């Protein structure tokens, strides 16, 4: 806590509230963690192999790419936007990168990652430009590019697929190798989460993302460069989806034109479950990452618990509704208690 200067003359009670909000946010992350642990414990009780090293590693690997995309999505959602094209961007990047590696087998992995980032950033730039300069709502613009980008993948792929045997060994190893028992993919995701977290919480440009989503009108009056920030958000989101495509190719080894189809909704679900407000202004990448992890655990655990496929979907849906309901509830409680703290009645 920072010291609050208290004037000596007849000061009313200090109008505070941040500690309470902190508690709620921490509670939110805590709630996700509890749900995670409960889910894992329940499943492990039925089948102890669920908590074997291999199984945990598989879950984390499965979550790694979703987490990556959820980070990008968080930045966009914070500005009151949404990017539905991430699945298609992932597919495009995965296919083009795999195709490139097939032709140039000597390419080092970092260069492949840069290629994917560049493809994704390009797609993101298109999204951002359409939204900002074309003044098209993000939902509509990215719904359009969802089909456009996917169309490009089909055009490039022309019905063919790239198999593991076509790709260089070193690249495929990157998809499965580990350092100190931790797969590279997970390390990449974690590094991205931390970097994005620092960017959003500690850099002016990052704070501007929150400001834009919190009140676009005030942002205009405050002179925040809305256009530049929005472009940044969509480029970042696209670039991370592009990177996700490279990881996807490395992990699965087989890439066809449908890679990543439908993934965008999983990512949006992860972000919402992770406590990022869908109308912008609040939420963290850590929450979104936890949300992605929770959804992955659920989809892995339910088959073990022999829960029907249908129920899996219903449970994810209930979680999303629950998350939104919780946000609403918490929001009301917080504003009520902030109001109470404001009043001068003791």
């Amino acid at each position: 806590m920072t010291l609050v200067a208290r004037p000596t003359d007849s000061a009313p009670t200090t109008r505070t509230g941040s500690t309470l909000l902190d508690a709620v946010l921490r509670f939110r992350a805590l709630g996700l963690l509890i749900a995670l642990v409960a889910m894992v414990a329940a499943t492990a009780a039925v089948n102890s192999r669920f908590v074997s090293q291999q199984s945990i590693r598989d879950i984390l690997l499965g979550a790694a790419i979703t987490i990556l995309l959820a980070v990008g999505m968080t930045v966009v959602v914070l500005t009151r936007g949404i990017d539905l094209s991430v699945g298609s961007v992932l597919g495009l990047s995965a296919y083009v990168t795999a195709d490139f590696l097939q032709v140039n087998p000597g390419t080092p992995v970092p260069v492949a990652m840069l290629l994917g980032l560049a493809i994704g950033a390009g797609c993101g730039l298109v999204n951002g430009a359409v939204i900002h300069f074309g003044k098209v709502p993000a939902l509509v613009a990215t719904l359009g590019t969802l089909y456009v980008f996917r169309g490009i993948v089909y055009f490039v792929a022309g019905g063919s697929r790239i198999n593991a045997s076509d790709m260089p060994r070193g690249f495929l190893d990157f998809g499965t190798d580990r350092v100190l028992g931790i797969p590279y993919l997970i390390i990449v995701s974690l590094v991205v989460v931390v970097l994005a977290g620092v960017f959003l919480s500690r850099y002016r440009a990052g704070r501007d993302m929150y400001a834009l989503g919190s009140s676009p009108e005030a942002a205009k009056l405050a002179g925040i460069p809305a256009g530049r920030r929005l472009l940044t958000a969509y480029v970042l989101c696209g670039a991370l989806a592009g990177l996700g495509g490279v990881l996807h190719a490395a992990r699965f080894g087989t890439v066809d034109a449908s890679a990543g189809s439908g993934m965008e909704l999983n990512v949006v679900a992860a972000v919402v479950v992770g406590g990022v407000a869908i109308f912008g202004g609040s939420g963290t990448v850590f929450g979104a990452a936890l949300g992605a992890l929770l959804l992955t655990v659920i989809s892995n655990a339910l088959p073990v618990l022999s829960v029907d496929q249908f129920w899996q979907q219903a449970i994810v849906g209930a979680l999303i509704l629950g998350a939104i309901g919780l946000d609403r509830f918490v929001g009301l409680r917080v504003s009520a208690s902030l109001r109470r703290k404001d009043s001068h009645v003791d």
Partner: protein
Amino acid sequence: MSAMGSAPEPPQLRPVVSLDGVTKAFGSVVALRDARLELFPGEAHALVGENGAGKSTLIKILAGVHRPDTGIVTVNGETVEFTNTAAAKDAGIAVIYQEPTLFPDLSVAENIFVGRQPRARLGLIDRAVMNREAAALFARLGVPLDPERPAKGLSIADQQIVEIAKAISVDATVLIMDEPTAALSGVEVERLFAVVRGLRDAGAAVLFISHRFDEVEALCQRVTVMRDGAHVSTDLMAEMTIDQIVRRMVGRELGALFPKQDVVPGAVVLEVEALSRAGLFRDVSFQVRAGEIVALAGLVGSGRSEVVQAVFGIDPRDAGTVRVAGRTLPAGNSKAAMRAGVALVPEDRRQQGLILDLSIMRNATLVRRNRLSRFGFLTGGAERREAAEWTRRLQTRYGRLTDPAGTLSGGNQQKVALAKWLATDPKVLIVDEPTRGIDVGTKAEVHRLMSQLAADGVAIVMVSSELPEVLGMADRVLVIREGRLAGELSRAEATEESVMFLATGRGAAA
């Protein structure tokens, strides 16, 4: 009418900001026809005029929000064209807008420093320094706000404080304040003025817009009057009387500002008994008779608005009963209150009173839409007739009935908010700050209207922070202090001193 009185030129000084021959039109509505203004370093300059006179547009041009159609704007003698708000800021112009524009999700400190947060190594924001500087600003303003709390949930007064802190945190050479005191209590206003005087004496130019003439007199050396988008006059404050200023603003003589007619009160219509809500107010009881105007006075934050909101039922109540014409109203049920003939015109018209994106017509007829519809369908004709009738009766100025309500000036928005409720033919009318941020002419019209309604037998409860309004309009004054009824004054007993004494609990303070 051309300029009256010559602008006195302070010796050997160059204006830090000047506007000359500035025009601005929005579609067919001409907001500024011929705006002129010169601000000199070290002066506090009042800009007065009725609503719709073009003050807000003028400010937004100085702030870089709007660009003038024609005319010249200079800063330090050089012609400038602000393309955005950042450019105006860089030129040293800070603006406090009439309606606070904060980021609800960001902390108070971040709201102040957004876009220019103090940075440490690697360009990282230094939160500790930021919070410390924010706390120092609040200490300077004498308000103990926690820099780390989110702006969400702040009262309007506190939001205004944050806006002020934001403006004084940049070393502005020009400080523009659009009705900064509308939501502040007397003590807070005094503190703000002390800070503003300090800035002024340090060489800043201050442009002060207010409808409170006592404040204009207390703070400003010169006064510019605008009417219908054009410059009317600029004079030394000391050479002007308030009567003269008001005449120039409205271009006509005004009768008494607060013409409450004497009405013999009828039967008790509204009875409130031992109303309580934890943390907000406790044990509030009062009665209002038909034809009476009862004012709820008190400091900002004393719980006045909360009381009337609980009476109307948009807020819950923990204890107590509310009866209208003898029938008890269920708690927290505004629909039942409306059915019983209670109407509430809220304080914050932009957020609660009107739906700004909706047309003037829809807003004016919103609460009546059931009665105006046939077989469940709204028929445009009935809506239009009703809206046209009410806007005419309230002398509302607008382009077309189908324009969004947000395009209206503040006073005209308030009239539409009033029209909406008056059309329901209420038995009890609750008005919360009916004339906040409204110009003198419209104010008088609103007061005339309230007086006429009372004469027609409506029981009126008025929450107001403006003492002249309270003293002029109210038959009885109920003073709320810290959530409790501190006392009741009859019209004869109520004076500025007696009301302030009850409101503050001590001798007549500022």
